[in-house]
């Protein structure tokens, strides 16, 4: 027994030496891909561009003028082939596990269905699926990656941080894959555009990425509608995904504005009286804090407070109802109402699911709101 154990030890010590000692890859043999862009090119193939960081440029003391990343592009018939073509051009092994962002250019998503693209993403085990998927409106995704951001060292990081800070956390490619595989939900994908504004006094800016709303995708992941940036906050709230952080509304008489910060956002779906699946209520809940009051209202008065709360509820309800109606017209159920009905009325759902995009248009969705005005601010009344 003892001899066997010793032999086993020796064999195991020998194993690593004979199994190839240079298995490890040093970090300076890797090219860390931070962002990927996909564009359509003329001949029908696709062009993949990879944004790769240059670690030596990030070191302290190096001049800030040199770029801290490069963008390399190559064409191919699918994502894998294009990536292989890129690999041939650079001396380090491509490492896509740390990717932050996948940008898809307008030329691609207008012509193709995105589910072909995401097959590679979901199938390849080396993808962590933690990256954010965005669409680029009005331009090539490749140019988007090439932008130099004034604050962050790569635009991909800037875009993903921008979404995070604005409460849009749940838009990773993992979520996209989950949404696209479920039958009763359609994905929402953020849309970015490049805004050419001068933000730096030193030099002319090439433009910065700006969040421009959502694209509503259908079952085949093809965009069927766009929501602008005012509608999208409500849409992500109704979809149970994001945070609706603030709202500004004009007061009844049209004089002055009221601004609220909203927190503890909640959303629930229920069908009316539990019987008719075609009548659905989207109930939203939140707590509001009054932050700005230019309507000369005396908030120390209890009646005014109740008045404001009622008005705010009605305003938000109207706003969201309009968003719901717009989404419904596109026929893409981004709110997950289908998923709810699937669970609530499974037998009914079986007849509906194949044409859910068409049937969704006929469902009557009502928005109900329960928003509590929690605080009227530090100064209750107005400054005299």
């Amino acid at each position, binding site marked *: 027994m003892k001899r066997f154990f010793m032999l086993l*030890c020796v064999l*195991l*010590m020998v194993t*690593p*030496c004979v*199994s190839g*000692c240079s*298995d*490890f*890859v*040093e*970090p*300076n043999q*890797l090219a*860390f891909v*931070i962002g990927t862009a996909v564009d359509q090119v003329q001949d029908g193939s696709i062009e993949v561009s990879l944004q790769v*960081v240059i*670690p*030596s440029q*990030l*070191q302290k003391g190096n001049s800030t003028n040199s770029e801290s990343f490069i963008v390399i592009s190559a064409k191919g018939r699918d994502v894998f082939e294009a990536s292989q073509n890129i690999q041939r051009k650079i001396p380090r092994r491509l*490492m896509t*596990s*740390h*990717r*932050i962002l996948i940008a898809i250019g307008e030329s691609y998503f207008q012509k193709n269905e995105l589910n072909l693209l995401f097959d590679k993403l979901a199938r390849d085990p*080396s993808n*962590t699926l933690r990256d954010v998927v965005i669409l680029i409106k009005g331009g090539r995704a490749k140019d988007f990656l090439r932008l130099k951001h004034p604050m962050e060292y790569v635009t991909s990081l800037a875009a993903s941080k921008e979404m995070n800070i604005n409460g849009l956390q749940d838009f990773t490619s993992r979520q996209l894959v989950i949404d696209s595989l479920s039958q009763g939900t359609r994905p929402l994908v953020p849309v970015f555009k490049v805004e050419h504004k001068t933000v730096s006094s030193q030099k002319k800016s090439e433009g910065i990425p700006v969040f421009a709303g959502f694209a509503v995708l259908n079952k085949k992941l093809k965009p069927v509608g766009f929501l602008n940036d005012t509608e999208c906050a409500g849409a992500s709230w109704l979809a149970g995904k994001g945070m609706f952080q603030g709202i500004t509304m004009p007061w009844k008489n049209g004089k002055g504005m009221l601004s609220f910060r909203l927190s503890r956002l909640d959303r629930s779906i229920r069908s009316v009286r539990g019987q008719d699946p075609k009548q659905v209520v989207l109930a939203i809940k939140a707590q509001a804090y009054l932050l700005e009051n230019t309507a000369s209202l005396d908030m120390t008065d209890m009646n005014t407070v109740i008045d404001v709360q009622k008005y705010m509820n009605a305003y938000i309800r109207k706003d969201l109802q309009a968003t719901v109606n717009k989404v419904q017209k596109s026929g893409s159920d981004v709110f997950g109402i289908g998923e709810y009905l699937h669970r609530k009325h499974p037998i009914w759902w079986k007849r509906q699911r194949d044409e859910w995009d068409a049937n969704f248009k006929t469902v009557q969705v009502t928005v109900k709101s329960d928003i509590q005005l929690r605080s009227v601010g530090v100064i209750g009344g107005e400054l005299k």
Partner: protein
Amino acid sequence: MNALSIDIEVNEAHLRQQFEDCSDIVFRSFKLSDGAMLLLVYLDGLTHVQSVEDNILRPLLFNGLPQGEKPVPSLAERMKREWLPLANVQTVDSSDALVQHILRGSLGLLVNGEAAALIAQIPGFEERSIQEPKKEATLRGSKEGFVENLRTNTSLLRRRIIHEDLKMESFTIGSYTQTEVVLAYVKGLADENVLSEVRKKLGQIDMKGIIDSAYLEEWLEGSSYSIFSQIQNTERPDIVAASLLEGKVTLIANGSPFALILPITFWSGLQSADDYFERFVFVILTRAVRYAMTFISFALPAIYVALSTFHPEMVPANLMISIATARENSPFPTVIEVFIMMFIFDALQEAGVHLPNQLGPVGSIIGALVIGQAAVEAGIISTPIIIVISLTGIAAFTIPRYSATMPFRLTRYMILFITGFLGFVGFAYGIIFLLIHLVMLESFGTPFFRPVAPFDGRRIKDIFIRYPFWIKNGRNKKGGQQ
């Protein structure tokens, strides 16, 4: 056995021959008024000379024999009974025994016409006083530490456990050193099997000398090739007393301030005496820190190598880019770099032990400046590795017992070696082998990894979080059974 002669001249000649070339032997012969010849023999420096003069020489020479007593047959008997105001007096009749006693610091007194010698124990040698143990300092608790003198050490234990069941069996080991070793245990609590095994092994020791209790440790251990020590050593009498009450067995060797405690488990190396002196809630935190750091102390370099060179996809993007940035110009592979740094760290540690006190700052300056700064600025060693190795080094020092850190310092190299080839697979191999070894190991019949494996629900209360004493004993505070 040479019996002593009646003739004092013969005895003296024999003793002088035995102690030939021993410059520290003292012979003092004198004659009493009634014609009796007496001879005092002792080793200078081991016997308390003042006491010899006060208690033996002065009464005999100046005061004469006490009157009014009925005659006693021999002078030696008379002296033993009446004249020597000393506590520990005995008679021996062989010259070998006499020599042995003299060597241990006793005073030999021979009388002409008697074939026996009187032995008086008047030890008087210089020794270290009881001090705070430096290696195992605690914030709270007793400040006493063991010293080199065996009797002082046993007295420290006797003063803590005032019970006649505290037994102290004596053994003499070492053909030249004749070291007295005491096997202390509490009868009724200690395991008889452990005791008989220890007695048997002590009897088998065949050495010229036992200089320190560490010598005993190697003779007693069951698995000598294991990297884990199966016997605990401590300078603290309070730890020994607590262990004795837990049913453990202690060995104290004369001349060594370190007592040995056995059997022990893996966890006793990770526990500090302070754990039992501080409030138990706080101890939960300190133990959690200590266990986490123990893991770090042998695993962190390997984890770093595996993560950064085998599985970079497991590291968050920003962290990985930071690491890549720092390692951009490194000339060596990560494994080699970590090996170099670990080697340098151990070299610094070893140098620190041997550096004379006056040269201490030199060592730290060279260590901090040359390795910490210059190597990084020259681009030979990257910063993350410095952080990893320093953290690993610090982590090993959170283990309370120095001898318990050794196995982890050694395992660090082994696990790094195999991880350098195989990545996390190798790391898993390393940990599995370590666990197999720990589970197979035994310390005097006690499984080394108890109470985790084999699981013991009652004892595990003292491993991860220290329960208060009243819960551990299965009683609630008011005295009823739980």
